[in-house]
């Protein structure tokens, strides 16, 4: 039974962030679902990177390319050797998404502030309303995208045909096919409901406690290894609706539990459930018992 996270160094506390706000080797990045939260109050010294406006191409459904990623880092004062600490709203959902995109382009030192905005607030730490600070431009060199952490549909189809593990991190209603979209997120629906055949359901937010921080290694192992039966050595693909909730589970499986081969399928249900002719399964499948807490779907 795991007593420690596999890569404990990727998590930092709010206290650590507070101490390193002025550290030139560190850049703090806020990534939220609600893009106004940064203006409403952020960690002093933090820059803002928006998952949608900054990290996604606005024409093609894809991430920004390597050149634009490098430009983004350069303008935010992030150098190749900067330690980048991500935090945000909704249990660090979008922070993990940004973390994943940074890993996609090979950024070495990435961290998550455990607990995100919720924990910063609960710890009584101050919010700043200053405009976004500007830092000296860097010469950033991005790597080619690391496809060992990103799965495309063709690969997912083969993976599914071979009966390899898939983890569906959406809410139970989306998994069974009752809902065509996450409750309250109609804008990201699909024409068919259900899940990729053989996928196991583990709603993403089960990995997080009430205070927004990740559950203990023992609890996480209980959920993913014992309940869901995900074997450490077998390649796992995680998916959700557009690849954001699954980047959170990707983070948990790889960095906290040490699964060596985990990919995020960012096409996710909005691609699979709209694709002509791919197999779909409805109903509970190998569903894990406990439902997703209501608070996480708001």
């Amino acid at each position: 039974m795991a007593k420690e996270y596999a890569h404990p160094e990727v998590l930092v506390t709010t206290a650590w962030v507070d101490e390193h706000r002025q550290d030139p080797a560190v850049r703090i990045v806020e990534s939220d679902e609600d893009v106004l939260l940064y203006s409403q109050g952020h960690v002093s010294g933090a820059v803002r990177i928006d998952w949608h406006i900054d990290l996604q191409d606005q024409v093609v459904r894809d991430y920004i390319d390597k050149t634009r990623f490098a430009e983004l880092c350069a303008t935010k004062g992030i150098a190749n050797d900067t330690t980048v600490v991500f935090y945000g709203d909704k249990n660090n959902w979008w922070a993990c998404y940004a973390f994943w995109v940074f890993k996609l382009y090979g950024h070495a030192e990435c961290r998550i502030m455990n607990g995100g905005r919720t924990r910063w607030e609960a710890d009584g730490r101050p919010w700043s309303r200053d405009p976004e600070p500007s830092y000296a431009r860097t010469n950033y060199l991005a790597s080619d995208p690391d496809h060992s952490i990103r799965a495309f549909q063709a690969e997912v189809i083969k993976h599914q045909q071979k009966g390899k593990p898939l983890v569906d991190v959406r809410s139970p209603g989306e998994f069974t096919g009752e809902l065509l979209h996450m409750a309250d997120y109609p804008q990201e629906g699909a024409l068919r409901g259900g899940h990729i055949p053989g996928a196991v359901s583990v709603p993403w937010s089960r990995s997080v406690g009430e205070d927004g921080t990740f559950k203990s290694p023992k609890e996480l192992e209980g959920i993913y290894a014992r309940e869901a039966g995900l074997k450490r050595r077998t390649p796992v693909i995680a998916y959700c609706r557009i690849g954001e909730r699954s980047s959170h589970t990707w983070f948990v499986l790889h960095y906290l539990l040490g699964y060596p081969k985990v990919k995020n399928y960012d096409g996710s249900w909005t691609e699979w459930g709209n694709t002509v002719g791919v197999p779909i399964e409805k109903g509970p499948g190998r569903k894990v018992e406990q439902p997703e807490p209501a608070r996480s779907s708001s």
Partner: protein
Amino acid sequence: MSGTVAQRIDEIASEFAELDPRERLELLLEFAEKLPPLPARYQAERDAGLNRVHECQTPVFLWTEIEDGQVRIYADVAPEAPTVKGFVSVLVELFSGSGPEEVLATEPDLVNRFGLVEALGMVRMRGLHAIAHHIRQKIAKSRNVR
């Protein structure tokens, strides 16, 4: 509040248009902060989960009523959803106090007038469209009752 709804839309639209996308977010936040608190008489209904706008990402509660021939909009939006709160506040400023016919005569996709796509991105716009649509429907319905 002065002028017609159409004039107010033009005024607010030009206020947004003069700003760059990041500044538009600041203006939207200013709107969020001036959304009047939910009157006490509606708080019990909200606590019971009534009048929630289900198309919205975050808890949004809206009461759209017609009092003495004037549209009145009362709202409660979670503080962790300032974008939605700001937009609701824009709609309150535009519509509250005007006649239902005048409000219904405004363009149905007026959300697109404020240059928010550039500031928020496409995927966030649908929720805002849903709110505007919800309010229009409520007004149309209340008008038919009378």
